[in-house]
């Protein structure tokens, strides 16, 4: 790692060997991040132990916010929805992205058109994706229209206003946008796999399914880890698309932890309670953040 000239007179102090300008190069960005990320994050933890409307003084209440959360039916719905979200959104985008990557892992002009089409939604913001899908799900929109054409009128419904399907309707929209990202990650992973191993297995009589699970998948272990961590972290952060499509409604049926937190903070003004929800989100995410960091740390060696 050292581009450092091996100075003839080796000074004992490591600090002294780094020029002042370089210290400034490091410290300015570091201070910006400390001030705008780590300092606010630390504040959230202390705010979570208070009741605060943002105007007066924060009143310390100990763990009362967390006790209230445990008895708050909307919070419990949001928590449950978030679990569904991690499994459904994560599962569908990983399965879809992996399947598409395996299918499209070959050269060809048509193949690159397919690939571009699949990851095109990535450039559309989550908020705008939400609007796109509001059009799709509108009562007189294309989805109900297509169902009508196919003679499946009984399946038509008010997708975003029907509490039983609204969460899944939003989830599908989010998957539509995520699959391309996962596909790109797996395509890169597949590029790094050894094709000759697969050929050897084919010669030995392994079918495509066996070759995939026994030969290709083990080689994708590194990518799988990253995809897993990224997906869970993304799922816990999800806010924009739900906010754009339903704002957590109808009757809080599509509320996720992030949307409920935002609502409590900026609509209702319960800043202490909102911070407590944020701390829960953090607690759920931290394990996966560490997993991801540990992996990055290993590659830094």
């Amino acid at each position, binding site marked *: 790692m050292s581009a450092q000239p091996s100075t003839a007179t080796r000074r004992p102090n490591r600090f002294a060997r780094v020029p002042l300008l370089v210290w400034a190069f490091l410290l300015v960005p570091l201070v910006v991040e400390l001030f705008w990320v780590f300092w606010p994050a630390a504040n959230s933890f202390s705010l979570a132990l208070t009741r605060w409307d943002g105007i007066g003084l924060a009143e310390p209440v100990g763990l009362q916010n967390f006790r209230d959360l445990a008895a708050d039916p909307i919070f419990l719905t949001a928590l449950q929805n978030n679990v569904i979200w991690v499994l459904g959104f994560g599962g569908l985008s990983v399965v879809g992205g992996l399947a598409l990557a395996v299918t499209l892992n070959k050269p060809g002009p048509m193949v690159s058109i397919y690939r571009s089409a699949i990851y095109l939604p990535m450039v559309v913001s989550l908020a705008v994706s939400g609007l796109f899908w509001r059009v799709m799900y509108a009562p007189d929109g294309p989805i109900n229209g297509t169902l009508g054409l196919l003679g499946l009128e009984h399946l038509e419904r008010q997708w975003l206003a029907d509490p039983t399907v609204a969460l899944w309707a939003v989830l599908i929209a989010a998957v539509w946008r995520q699959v391309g990202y996962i596909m790109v990650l797996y395509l890169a992973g597949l590029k790094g796999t050894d094709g000759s191993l697969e050929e050897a297995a084919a010669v030995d009589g392994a079918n495509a399914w066996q070759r995939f699970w026994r030969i290709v998948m083990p080689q994708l272990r590194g990518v799988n880890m990253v995809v897993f961590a990224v997906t869970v972290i993304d799922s816990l952060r999800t806010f924009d698309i739900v906010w754009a499509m339903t704002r957590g409604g109808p009757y809080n049926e599509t509320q996720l932890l992030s949307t409920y937190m935002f609502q409590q903070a900026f609509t209702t003004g319960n800043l202490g309670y909102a911070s407590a929800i944020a701390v829960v989100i953090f607690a759920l995410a931290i394990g996966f953040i560490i997993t991801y960091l540990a992996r990055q*740390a290993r590659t830094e060696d």
Partner: protein
Amino acid sequence: MSALAPPAAGAPAAVRDRPAPRLRRPKPARSPWLHVAMVPVTLLWLSPIVFVLFVAIRSYDDIAGRGLGAFPASFSLDGFATALTEGGVLRSLGNSVLVTVCAVVASLALSSFAAYALSRFDIPFRRTILLTMLAGNLLPPQILLVPVSSITEAIGIGDTLTALVVVQVGFGIGFYTFVLHGFMRSLPNEVFEAARLDGAGPGGIFWRIVLPLSRPSLAALAALATTWIFNDLIWAMTVLRTEAKFPITAALLNLQGGFASAWNVVAAGALIAAVPTAIVFFLFQKQFVSGLLVGANK
């Protein structure tokens, strides 16, 4: 570019080093089934974009009369015109572009400083610093929202675009630094030795050697950061109150409230919002894809 999109680390070295069995690689089968499967999937994937386009170019009466799902029987750019003027999409697009340009430039400048210091100098605890910075970017933004909102108020930049830029820079820096560090570390030592013999100081080396050589990774990060910052909603909603200052994402959600039944206006606004990032995507597709891989596929 190679440092940006390295081969997957998944394949164990032992496996890779084993001599390949003497087999002819089979020619890729020209099977029609691939296309039979992928053409419908592709069309299905593009259908939301296509339908929004259909809605945007239809007239209000056509939509009201025949429903959102119908194919266009009219052509009208009223939706675009209304969205841009009355809907304030033009103004909010300007806000978005301003915030994005400032935030991307500032983030990449600051993180290339930090990456240079961490990758080429013997900074104590450099690895810890680097990973801490990356960790900051991985935190769920929710844990920052309430304090960030009150900090911007407290230092007098509440409800300004400056606040939005500063927050975006602070939150993004960790990731960009991590990626640039990986790249700068891989630059050959000889270049630095040569420059040092020519009498260049640390600042000169950064400016004349490191920045030009890092152009590929800076381009990839710029493409990625542009879409992230332009597409952001949650930070904008956290620090901004006045509608006139909203970037396009937040403005569109208001548009949806104000023009609830005028779907052609909402659809036109949504398409306009997608255009700038789509341009970045098509112009810099290679950089964009390698940008997606950075950090994720090491």
